C-alpha cells in the first residue's frame, strides 16, 4: 500500500533529521563558534514555522509562499552546515600541521598574502524572457498552465530569495523587482542564481475554493489524484533541492504535504560579469517539457550586477601628510590632511575640513595608471618620501609626500600597496563607483492573484443600469403606441417586423432566462428558417409563407404592436445532470446568473423527452419529419392586451439579484 510506505519513510526521515541536528550542534559547540550556531538555530526555527504554516494554510498563494520560505531556510541551513564542516576540517588540518611541524603557520609576508578588500555586490532588475510556442499562446481553451517561480541567489554563505511571481502564458518575461545586496563578497565571488518553479495547479490544500470545485467538474478526477500520489511518492521530494556540498550530511526536510519547488534553471555570475549596466547571461536549464514545473525559458537572464568594493566607498587610510611644493629651492612643504578613498587621495587643509565636507584643497589620483615609489632617503630628513606619478594628458606630474615618522610613511605605503592590490583584484569595479540602490524598507506589495487591471477599479455607474435601458424601451414603447395610433412608426420598428430579404438567423429553441412561467411559443416568423417552433406541445411550426406569422406574441409582448411577429422566449431544455451542476455552482455564488436560467419546463412538456432534449431536429422529428415540409400549427394566443409593456416584477427582482452578484468589481462586465 503506497501510503503506508510513505508514512514509514516519513518516520525514518524524522529520525535522521534529529540525528543530524545533534551532530550539527556538536560540531558548532566544538568549534566554539556561536555565531554560526546561532544562525543555524535561527534558520531551523524559521523552517519549523514555515512547515507549520504550510500544513495549516488553505489558500494556494499562502502555501506557495510558505513552501518558498521552506526552501530558502533549507538552503541556508545547508550552507551553514557546509561552512561548519569546512571550519571543522580546517581546524583539524591546522592541528595536524602544528603537530607535525611544531610551529604555527606564520603570518605571511607583506605582499604574498595581501588579501583584497571585500565589497558589496548587488544584483537587481532580474528579467528572464520566456518563449511560449504560438500554439500555446493563442489557445483559448485548455488549462492555463500556471507556475509559481522565484529566484534563489547565493554568494558564499549568504542566501537571499526574491519574491514569488506567478507565471502563465500571458507573461512574456519573468521580472523580479528585488534588489539583492550581498555585503561581504570577495572579488573572487561566485553568485549562484537559481530559478525554482512549482506548478500551481495541483490540489494539495485541504480546503478547496469554489472555483477549484467548478474547474474540477470539467476535468477528470483521476488526473489530479494521480499527480498527487506521484509527487508524494517521489523520493527526492523530501530533500531540499539544492546541495551545498555537504555530502556527508543529509538534511531531509520535514515531509510536509504541500507544493514542492523544483530547480528549473541556474547560472553562476562572477566578477567578469559585473558591469554598471544591464547584461544578458546564459541560463542552464534543467528539466524538460514533461515536467509539471516546466516553464518555457528562452535560455538567458538579464540583470544588472554591480559591485562596490570597500576600497571605493570607505576611507582606507587617513593621516597628516606633507606635500612638497613644486618649484622653489629649498623645497617647501605644505601640511595637509590626506584621505585615501576610492581612486583618489584627497588632501584637505585641515582634518576638520574633511569632517565638514568642505572641498579638498587638491586631489591626487590613485588609479591603475599611477606609479608610486618610495624615494631614497633624503639627506635632510630622516624619513623616506613617497613619490606619486600620474599621467595627465601626456604630461607626467609627480607629487612628493612625506610624513613625520618612518612608521607613518610605512603605513602609507602599505595603504597604497593595498589599494593597488584591491584595484587589480576588483578590476573594472574600481574604474568608477557603481551605484547600488538599496531597497528601501517598504510594505510588501499586495499581490493579487488576478491580473491587476485598472478596469477592476472602475465602478459602473448605477445610471448605466440595465433597468434604465429597459425603462427607456418601455417609454419608447409607449411612444410607439401613441405614434402607431397616429400612423407613423419609428425606424427601428423594422427590427421587429419581418423583412423579406433580411438575413435571419436560425434560432435555437431555448429556455428563457427570465421567468420560467412564461409560455413557450413559436419563435419564428415567416423566416425561411427551417427551425421549427418549440418544445412544448404548443409548439407550432411556421412555413415558408409570405404572410407574417400568425402566432401571436406571448404575454411578454403585450406592448408591441400588431405587426410584431418575432421571437420571444426561447427555451433551452435542461437536463437533470446539468441542473445538478448548476445547483452546485449556484451554492457557490454563481447562482445569481444561473438562478434566473431556466427551470425545466412544466412536466407536461417533459414528456416527449426526445423532443425536449434536442431542440430543432427533434422537433422536426416530432412535429414534422423534414424541414422541407411545411406544417403549420396554430398557437393559442396568450392574452394580448393593449397594456403598455412592463417587465414582470419577478424579472426585475431577479435582475437585481443578478446585479448584486455580478458586482463589477469581481469580474468586469460592460453593457453595450
Amino acid at each position: 500500500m503506497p501510503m503506508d510506505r510513505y508514512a514509514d519513510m516519513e518516520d525514518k526521515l524524522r529520525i535522521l533529521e534529529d540525528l543530524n541536528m545533534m551532530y550539527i550542534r556538536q560540531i558548532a559547540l566544538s568549534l566554539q563558534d556561536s555565531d554560526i550556531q546561532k544562525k543555524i538555530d535561527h534558520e531551523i526555527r524559521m523552517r519549523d514555522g514555515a512547515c507549520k504554516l504550510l500544513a495549516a494554510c488553505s489558500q494556494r498563494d499562502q502555501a506557495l509562499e510558505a513552501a518558498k520560505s521552506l526552501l530558502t531556510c533549507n538552503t541556508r541551513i545547508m550552507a551553514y552546515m557546509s561552512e561548519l564542516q569546512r571550519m571543522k576540517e580546517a581546524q583539524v588540518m591546522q592541528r595536524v600541521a602544528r603537530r607535525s611541524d611544531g610551529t604555527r603557520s606564520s603570518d605571511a609576508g607583506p605582499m604574498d598574502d595581501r588579501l583584497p578588500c571585500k565589497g558589496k555586490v548587488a544584483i537587481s532588475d532580474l528579467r528572464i524572457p520566456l518563449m511560449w510556442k504560438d500554439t500555446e499562446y493563442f489557445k483559448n481553451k485548455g488549462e492555463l498552465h500556471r507556475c509559481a517561480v522565484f529566484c534563489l541567489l547565493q554568494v558564499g554563505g549568504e542566501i537571499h530569495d526574491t519574491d514569488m511571481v506567478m507565471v502563465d502564458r500571458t507573461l512574456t518575461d519573468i521580472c523580479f523587482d528585488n534588489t539583492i545586496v550581498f555585503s561581504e563578497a570577495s572579488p573572487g565571488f561566485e553568485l549562484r542564481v537559481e530559478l525554482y518553479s512549482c506548478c500551481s495547479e495541483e490540489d494539495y490544500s485541504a480546503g478547496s475554493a469554489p472555483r477549484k470545485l467548478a474547474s474540477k467538474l470539467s476535468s477528470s478526477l483521476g488526473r489530479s489524484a494521480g499527480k498527487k500520489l506521484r509527487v508524494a511518492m517521489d523520493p527526492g521530494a523530501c530533500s531540499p533541492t539544492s546541495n551545498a556540498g555537504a555530502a556527508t550530511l543529509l538534511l531531509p526536510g520535514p515531509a510536509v504535504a504541500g507544493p514542492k519547488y523544483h530547480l528549473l534553471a541556474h547560472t553562476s555570475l562572477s566578477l567578469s560579469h559585473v558591469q554598471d549596466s544591464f547584461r544578458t547571461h546564459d541560463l542552464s536549464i534543467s528539466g524538460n517539457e514533461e515536467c509539471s514545473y516546466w516553464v518555457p525559458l528562452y535560455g538567458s537572464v538579464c540583470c544588472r550586477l554591480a559591485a562596490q568594493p570597500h576600497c571605493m566607498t570607505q576611507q582606507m587610510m587617513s593621516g597628516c601628510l606633507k606635500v612638497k611644493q613644486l618649484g622653489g629651492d629649498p623645497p617647501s612643504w605644505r601640511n595637509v590632511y590626506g584621505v585615501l578613498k576610492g581612486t583618489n587621495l584627497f588632501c584637505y587643509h585641515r582634518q576638520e575640513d574633511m569632517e565638514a565636507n568642505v572641498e579638498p584643497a587638491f586631489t591626487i589620483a590613485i588609479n591603475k595608471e599611477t606609479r608610486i615609489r618610495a624615494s631614497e632617503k633624503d639627506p635632510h630628513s630622516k624619513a623616506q618620501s613617497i613619490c606619486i606619478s600620474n599621467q595627465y594628458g601626456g604630461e607626467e606630474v609627480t607629487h612628493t609626500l612625506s610624513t613625520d615618522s618612518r612608521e607613518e610613511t610605512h603605513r602609507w605605503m602599505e595603504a597604497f600597496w593595498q589599494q593597488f592590490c584591491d584595484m587589480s583584484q576588483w578590476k573594472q569595479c574600481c574604474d568608477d563607483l557603481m551605484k547600488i540602490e538599496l531597497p528601501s524598507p517598504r510594505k510588501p506589495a499586495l499581490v493579487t492573484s488576478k491580473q491587476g487591471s485598472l478596469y477592476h477599479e472602475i465602478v459602473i455607474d448605477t445610471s448605466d443600469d440595465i433597468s434604465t435601458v429597459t425603462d427607456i424601451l418601455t417609454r419608447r414603447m409607449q411612444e410607439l403606441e401613441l405614434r402607431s395610433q397616429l400612423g407613423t412608426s419609428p425606424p427601428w420598428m423594422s427590427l421587429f417586423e419581418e423583412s423579406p430579404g433580411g438575413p435571419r438567423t436560425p434560432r435555437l429553441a431555448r429556455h428563457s432566462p427570465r421567468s420560467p412561467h412564461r409560455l413557450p411559443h413559436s419563435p419564428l416568423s415567416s423566416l425561411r428558417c427551417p427551425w421549427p417552433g418549440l418544445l412544448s406541445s404548443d409548439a407550432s411550426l411556421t412555413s415558408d409563407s409570405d404572410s407574417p406569422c400568425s402566432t401571436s406574441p406571448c404575454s411578454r409582448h403585450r406592448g408591441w404592436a400588431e405587426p410584431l411577429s418575432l421571437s420571444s422566449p426561447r427555451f433551452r431544455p435542461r437536463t437533470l445532470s446539468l441542473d445538478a451542476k448548476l445547483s452546485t455552482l449556484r451554492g457557490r455564488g454563481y447562482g445569481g446568473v444561473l438562478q434566473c436560467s431556466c427551470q425545466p419546463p412544466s412536466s407536461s412538456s417533459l414528456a416527449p423527452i426526445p423532443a425536449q432534449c434536442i431542440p430543432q431536429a427533434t422537433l422536426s422529428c416530432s412535429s414534422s419529419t423534414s424541414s422541407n415540409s411545411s406544417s403549420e400549427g396554430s398557437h393559442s394566443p396568450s392574452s394580448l392586451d393593449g397594456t403598455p409593456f412592463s417587465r414582470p416584477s419577478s424579472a426585475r427582482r431577479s435582475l437585481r439579484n443578478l446585479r448584486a452578484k455580478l458586482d463589477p468589481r469581481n469580474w468586469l462586465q460592460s453593457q453595450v
Partner: protein
Amino acid sequence: MVEWEYNNYLMVVKVLNDFLSKLDSQCSCVLQQRIEIRKLRQGEHLILGFSIGGGIDQDPGQNPFSEDKSDKGIYVTRVTPEGPAEVAGLMMGDKVMQVNGWDMTMVTHDQARKRLTKKNEDVVRLLVASLLCNTSPFVQTEFAI
C-alpha cells in the same frame, strides 16, 4: 430557403447525430451562429442591449458561463429583454467569437467593448458560439433529414 441557414442546420444536425452516438459521455455541443444586431439609437448612444464579460485581462475563473474555466473569451452575461440583441437571437451565455469580422477571442475587455460600440456602425454582425445542453444518456434517436 436561404442557403447559409440551411447549411447551419445541416451542421447542427450532423453534430447532434455525432454526439448522440456517444451515449455514455457527457458531451456538449456548440452551435456557431451569425447574429445580426441592429443598434438602437437612444439620444446620442447606440445600444445593443446586452452586456459582456471576459477578456484576456480578466480572471477567467469567474466566468459563470464558460465550460472551460481558463477561457478568456468574451461572453454575453445579460441580455436586455426586448432589446435589439435579444430580438436578434442573442442569448445569455453565448460566447462572442467575432464582431464584424474582428476577432473577439483574444482581446481585452475594453477592446471588446469598443469593437461593439463603434459610433459609426449601425449594425453589428456577431459570430457567436452557443452551448447546447448536455444530453442525458438515454436519448436514442438518430436524426435524418
